């Protein structure tokens, strides 16, 4: 049994999720693979979105997977870092916008 919660090599075993619930696992992977196919957005654009979301979700498996996916698609490190900053900006903006709620409350109580 691993002594850490995250084991990098566990990413390779992701597909085995299906073994304990074939129907749901298969539905998930079918859905997942369909999402990343070329559509109104290119697979390259989707890869960058996935990289940004991987960071906002703080998912180490997803970060490993989509850093590699980006390299495979020829995405540059500058493009990858810009995507991470988009995620970071939304995350920090999501915190900061609550400041309006704080202002509303303070103004109501003590305005």
């Amino acid at each position, binding site marked *: 049994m691993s002594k850490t919660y995250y084991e990098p090599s566990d990413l*390779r075993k992701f597909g085995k999720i299906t073994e304990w619930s074939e129907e749901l696992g298969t539905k998930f992977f079918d859905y997942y693979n369909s999402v990343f196919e070329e559509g109104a957005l*290119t*697979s*390259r654009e989707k890869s960058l979105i996935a990289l940004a979301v991987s960071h906002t979700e703080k998912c180490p498996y997803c970060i490993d997977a989509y850093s*590699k996916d980006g*390299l*495979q*698609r*020829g995405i*540059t490190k500058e493009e990858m870092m810009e995507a991470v900053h988009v995620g970071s900006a939304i995350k920090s903006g999501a915190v900061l916008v609550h400041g309006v709620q704080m202002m509303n409350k303070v103004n109501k109580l003590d305005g």
Partner: protein
Amino acid sequence: MKQLKSLHKRESLLAESNKQLEILSDGLFKSGELPTFKEKISEINRFPLKPKQLEILQINLGYMCNQVCEHCHVDAGPDRKEIMTKETMLQCLKIIKTTGAHTLDLTGGAPEMNPNFRWFVEKASKVGIKDFIVRSNLTIIRANKKYHDLPDFFKKYNVHVISSMPHWTRGKTDKQRGSGVFDQSISALKSLNAIGYGMPNSNLKLDLVYNPSGAFLPSNQASMEKDFKRALKEDFNIHFHNLFAITNLPISRFLDYLIASDNYEDYMYALVEAYNPEAVANVMCTNTISVSWDGWLYDCDFNQMLDLKVASKVQHINDYNETLLQNRHIIVSQHCYGCTAGAGSSCQGTLA
């Protein structure tokens, strides 16, 4: 330009093909964690792997090169002295005259550095081979004055030029192929474009080869080609015809890099996971014969570098017999997963 030394010059253990084959058969494959290539193709009744109609004769004119690329499966470099002699070239010309192959593919090292390169191209071009390829690393054209006229030379003999270009950005290209390689490659591409190579509707064929700059597999060839074309046109007004996406095989300097960077196991997992049975039918060893600088025969360029000579009574061009060679069984090992990953990989790009 970045100047490393070849594994041979460094007297690295990995310069020995036996050591490489040992690593490729050991560890994950010996423990059964991953299936061997033989086991994998046995599942689809493709073992033993047999040749189809011979289409490509690939001749390696020598391991000498002006570059020392990080990923090079040939372990080529300026310090390699293995060069094909004129005598061996004469033997090659004999087989080029009689072969059923429609494509002649000259490679190296930098084939242009062979002192008899131009003589050989001139002679070989008269035989009437349909597609005459020279794999040129581009920087050789700018390396020395004596090579500056190579584009005109290629044009004179209607040579199909295939060149490596790992990325459309300077940083990624120079990381893999040495500092300064990007600028020299761009300059060489411009000189090829200037005389018609790679231009839309031109018969002077100029294709580029993309192989990843690190421990990851290439993406979809068509979308990579689109990205390369857009970027090289926008940034440098450069044109080319096709992009071939090639997977780095875990041998020689790339194997050394994988082990040193602790990426070997993950890379082998990635290759095995990406195994595509549809690519097996078209792997290049089934339609190619690879000839080494000293005239030995191999199933492919990679087997040449691992010194796995063809399993045939005929093993050298001195005894060349295409009919006998066609009856051989192709030698496989775990490096072959590199040719069957994803859409497959060959010197002519994807397979499936």
